[in-house]
Structure formats: structure tokens, C-alpha cells
């Protein structure tokens, strides 16, 4: 997916990897979106549902890709929409609503995953348990398995950018707006993430 460029890059953009909905039926137009937001703020429950329906797939997909777990993905998606509805009056409309929702989703997801990681680290430390990662890597030469492990092992920032760009098909502009960084930073992080993966999977790269 080429980053940026298209005039509608800042509004809704379905992922390239698995397009299930056409843009025409799925993308809220900016005017409709503004109207929808006004109706939600006025307390219209059907507008709340419409807003949810328009964005839930994208939020859920991102949460699931990041968490890799159904329960966690549901928790993070739920938390994202609860926060979004309670803070919708602070949405200024500088970016697309999908971008604003994405930034809430990524923040909720990363915080949730950090919490889980902290707990796991403490529990592992207590039980003096040796992680099975590298051993499993050596035992399983399958590229997908190795790649999944390598992506899991990426630093948080690289992983988020890699998943958003290479897996979910976001543009660097969208990633920048969602993560609150410059698109150039997103490009640099993606470059480093790929380099890290190439390094980890060096034996496959040679083949």
C-alpha cells in the first residue's frame, strides 16, 4: 500500500489485506460524519449505534492484531468505544473520526498489553519460569511461526507501526495521525521493524 497521496487518505480507508466492505457502503462521508456526531452528542441512541457500526470492525481488527487474543481484543474494543462516547464532545474534527478512534484504540490496547506484560513478568519471576521462546523458535522452522514470534518480539513502537502498515494497510499519514507522530517517523520505524525482522529471520532471507 502506497502511503499518503490520495485525497481521501484522511477519511475512512478499509484495510488492504482483507477488504470485506466496499468504501461506498462503509465509509462515512465527512458531512454525514459531522451530522452523526451532532446526533450522538444530542443523545440520539440510533446515531450512537450507527457510529459504532461504522467503526467497530476497524477498531476490533486493530485490537485483535495487537493483542492476538479474543477476550483482550473485545475488552480493548469495548473500552475504546466507552471512552470515545464519553469524550466525543472533545473531538474537534481536525482529523477524521476513524483516526481519532484509532488513536484511542491504540492507546487503550498498548496500555492494556503493558499491564498484562508487567503482570506476566512478575509471575514468571516468582515461579522462576524460563520462557520457551527461543527453544520453540529453534524447534519450529516454519516461516509463519518464526515470523509471528519475531513480530511478537519487536519493540512496542516498531510492532504497532509494522502491524498498522504491513498487516492492516494504514498509510504513514494515518499511522502518524493515530500515534501522534510525524509520518516520517512512522516510515523510519517501519524500516527498522523490517530490518529487525530480516535480521531475526536471516536464515530464511538467505534461502
Amino acid at each position, binding site marked *: 500500500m502506497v502511503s499518503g497521496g490520495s485525497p481521501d487518505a484522511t477519511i475512512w480507508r478499509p484495510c488492504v489485506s482483507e477488504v470485506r466492505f466496499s468504501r461506498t457502503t462503509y465509509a462515512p462521508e465527512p458531512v454525514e460524519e459531522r451530522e452523526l456526531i451532532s446526533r450522538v452528542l444530542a443523545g440520539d441512541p440510533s446515531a450512537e449505534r450507527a457510529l459504532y457500526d461504522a467503526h467497530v470492525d476497524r477498531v476490533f481488527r486493530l485490537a485483535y*492484531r495487537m493483542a492476538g487474543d479474543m477476550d483482550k481484543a473485545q475488552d480493548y474494543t469495548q473500552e475504546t468505544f466507552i471512552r470515545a462516547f464519553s469524550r466525543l464532545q472533545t473531538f474537534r474534527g481536525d482529523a477524521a473520526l476513524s483516526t481519532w478512534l484509532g488513536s484511542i484504540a491504540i492507546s487503550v490496547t498498548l496500555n492494556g498489553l503493558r499491564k498484562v506484560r508487567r503482570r506476566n513478568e512478575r*509471575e514468571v519471576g516468582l515461579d522462576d519460569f524460563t520462557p520457551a521462546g527461543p527453544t520453540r523458535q529453534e524447534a519450529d522452522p516454519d516461516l509463519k511461526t518464526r515470523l509471528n514470534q519475531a513480530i511478537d518480539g519487536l519493540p512496542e513502537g516498531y510492532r504497532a507501526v509494522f502491524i498498522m502498515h504491513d498487516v492492516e494497510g494504514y498509510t504513514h499519514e494515518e499511522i502518524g495521525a493515530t500515534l501522534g507522530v510525524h509520518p516520517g517517523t512512522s516510515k523510519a520505524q517501519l524500516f527498522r521493524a*523490517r530490518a529487525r525482522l530480516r535480521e531475526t529471520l536471516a536464515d530464511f*532471507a538467505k534461502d
Partner: protein
Amino acid sequence: MMDDRFDDLLRDSAREYNDPPETPREELWQRIVASREGEKAAPKEKTEKLERLRVLPFRRLPAIRPLSWAAGIAAVLALGIGLGRMTVHQPATVATTAAAPASAAATRVSGVAYRVATTEHLSQSEAFLTLFRASVGKPGNERLASATARQLLATNRLLLDSPAASDARTKLLLQDLELVLAEIAQLSPEPRSRDLQLITDGMEQGGVLSRLRTAVPAGTSATQGAL
């Protein structure tokens, strides 16, 4: 060239990374609605109760839910007794932890002193967390709980910086306890049920309370005096 081919392969394979299933739209929506209604209902219920109390004539007040009043008073009393016991013992704990490294002669006995201080602290923390967990959902004790947690947190940090934490198991327990106490200490006077749930979930998932009970020898639990 090879890098480009590998990048393409990487992208193709990566698309299956944590491949999401179909979004459980309805289930998620129900959860969101229920959670938002719960949040809305909690403060509303509280305001309604206050309003009801305000409009009722004074003589009718004692008749309102006598059991809940009694339970509330009992909970406050239990917390008060627990707090009282903690504050009576605390100077000794702090003095022990601060004075221990003072001399070489004291070093020989400090091991025992630290163990006693740690056991005392863990026992008090266990009593406090037991009371806290039991009082979740019964509003009104948050301020007291927060103040008690702050006191225990101070002792906890002193112990973490002392030789008492040289034992890896004790150190981990103190670190986990610190996290829970810090969360309770930061509790707002009117916490949301979700905040309380997060704290109790944290306690459950880390097994803090059960580990405290394991660490405290039988017969030293502060709950015995408090409850």
C-alpha cells in the same frame, strides 16, 4: 533485490499474523451499552439516595434500611480498629527498619528484626486488603482506605529498600503489594466501580492476598484482633 523479495514475502506472510475473526458486533455492543448504563446509574443512584435523605423528616432517618446502616457502622469500626492497631505498631516498625544498619553489632540481630518487621507489615497489609476487598461496593470508606494504603505504602517502600528485600520471594511480594497499595492510595473519594474492579482484579490475578496469607505465619494475622 534479495531484501525486496524478502520484504514481499514478509508482507504476504505477515497478513496472517493474529488474523482476526469476525467482529462480534452484537455482543460487543451489548457490553458497551451495559457498561455505560452501569456508569450512568452509579452516580444517579447516589444522588437519589442523598435527595431522599434530604427530604425525609429527621425522625424517619433511623428507620431507613437499618441493616445497611449497621453493616456500614460495623465496616467503619472494623477498619478503625485495624487502622488503630497499625498505627500503634508502626513507629516500632519504622524505627526498626531505620535503625538497623546503624552499627555492626546490630547487624547480627537485624536479620531477625527485619523478619519480624516484615511479618508485621505483611500481616497488617493482609488485614487491610481483606477488609478492603470486603468493603468494595459499599461506598463511604474510600478516604480511610486511601489513607491507610498510604501509610502501608510508606512502610512497604522502607522494607523494599532494606535487607528485608534481599530474599527474592519477599521482594517480589513487596513489589506486587506496592502496586496494589499504590492503586488504593490513589483512589478518588468517589471511585468508579470499574476502578475498584481493576484493583480487586489485580489482587486476584497477582494472587497478592493468597501470597500474603502464605507469607504470614499462622497466629500473627492482624485480622484476628480486628475482626
